[in-house]
């Protein structure tokens, strides 16, 4: 995470932060101890990012920061100042789902849906880094996202389908 940053944020004071999320500049005030996920959810009302275990194990809070998947419950909001963040809210364009979301829908890559925002963001980061992943690459890429419903088989299938869809979209020259 690079860019502008505060030099000091006092424990008992609120610090103004400005973070670019899904292409839009958001401002808010946080304590130094405010974790990024709580800033997203409680301050900005971006509740698509979920809090699961809140101890860095489950990956439900995964967002993409400067192109990389990170767990937003293990990053301070003040650390993210100046960063470029993508959350699940930034995937769809209006009513049109992102190809990754389409793939998860089509392939039954979710049941209860709690882990899904995190899985979608991990998938996004994975496919940007590695557009044609093997099954092993996929399983490794999502090892930080726990799903208690699917048993992962359909998640892997969804990621593969998303990879195909994105690669076809690239061939056709659409975004």
């Amino acid at each position: 995470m690079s860019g502008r940053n505060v030099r000091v944020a006092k424990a008992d004071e609120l610090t103004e932060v400005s973070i670019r999320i899904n292409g839009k500049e958001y401002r808010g005030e946080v304590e130094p101890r405010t974790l990024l996920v709580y800033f997203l959810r409680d301050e900005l009302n971006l509740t698509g990012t979920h809090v699961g275990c809140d101890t860095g194990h489950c990956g439900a809070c995964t967002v993409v920061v400067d192109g990389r998947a990170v767990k937003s419950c293990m990053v301070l909001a003040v650390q993210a100042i100046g960063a470029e963040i993508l959350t699940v809210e930034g995937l769809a364009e209006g009513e049109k789902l992102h190809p990754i979301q389409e793939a998860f829908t089509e392939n039954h890559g979710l049941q209860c849906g709690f882990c899904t925002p995190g899985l979608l963001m991990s998938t996004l980061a994975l496919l940007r880094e590695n557009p044609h992943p093997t099954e092993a690459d996929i399983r490794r890429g999502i090892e930080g996202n726990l799903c208690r419903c699917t048993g992962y088989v359909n998640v892997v299938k969804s990621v593969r389908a998303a990879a195909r869809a994105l690669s076809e979209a690239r061939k056709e020259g659409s975004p």
Partner: protein
Amino acid sequence: MIPKKFDYYSPGSLKEAIRLLRQNEEAKVLAGGQSLLPLMKLRLAAPTALVDISKLADLSYIRDEGNYLAIGALAAHDAVEHDVTIKDRFTLINDAVARIGDQQVRNLGTIGGSVCHADPAADLPVALLVADARFVIEGEGGKRIVTARDFFVDLFTTAVGHDEILTELQVPYLAERSGSAYFKHSLREADFAIANVGTIITMEGDGKRCREARIGFGSAGPTPVRAASAEQYLRERPLDEGTIAEAAERAIEGASPPSDVHGSREYRLKMIKVLTQRSLRLALSRVGLAGGGVER
């Protein structure tokens, strides 16, 4: 879960970071935060100030220094894992880094942060101990260099003083005819190890006898340890199934793994033996590949 309150500092230079640490006795260094922040959320740690060094970009290099590789303390695990030199010539380090946490943790977590956290079940401390790495520590008085044996002092305790910062790891290149490997046994991929073992072997010119063997393991005491008796035993012996089995028996001399919910003492001792054999075999199979082999 929310950490206790703390002042947050984001210094612009290493010097400023060291000065801030000197001024705040209860300050902690924050790098990737992937070990420290969870501890703070669980309130197992409650520093009154955090000195965030993660934006000191000039500490994330990976650089060839002739007879050793210099890795900046802020290099992220993921960057270390994908570094071509490390892949080709430091398979042991590559094996270990690839097993740290999960992708999200490897994206933010730094190698300096991981070793300073000094969890005895962590992956890198074992690998670095076996690799005879050196640790560059900077404080107000300048730099000092500490060997891996002296770096890991106790459970979660290293040679880095309160007002000092680990800035670089120096990993010596392996001799010719060497091979290395690291194995970790855990229930789930991202878990800490139940047992973990790293080895480096260097063969004699005849390709049959072992000139030097280095074996180390973690998760069996407050710090990672070297298996001195097993190392001694293998010297000038051929590496075959018999000697590998005997080395594994000797490897657990002095090992004192805990019995806990993750595994009993007996189970862990057995796993150290199993992993010692596996890593010796894999290291042997990698001898002759470029500087210790690539097997992914």
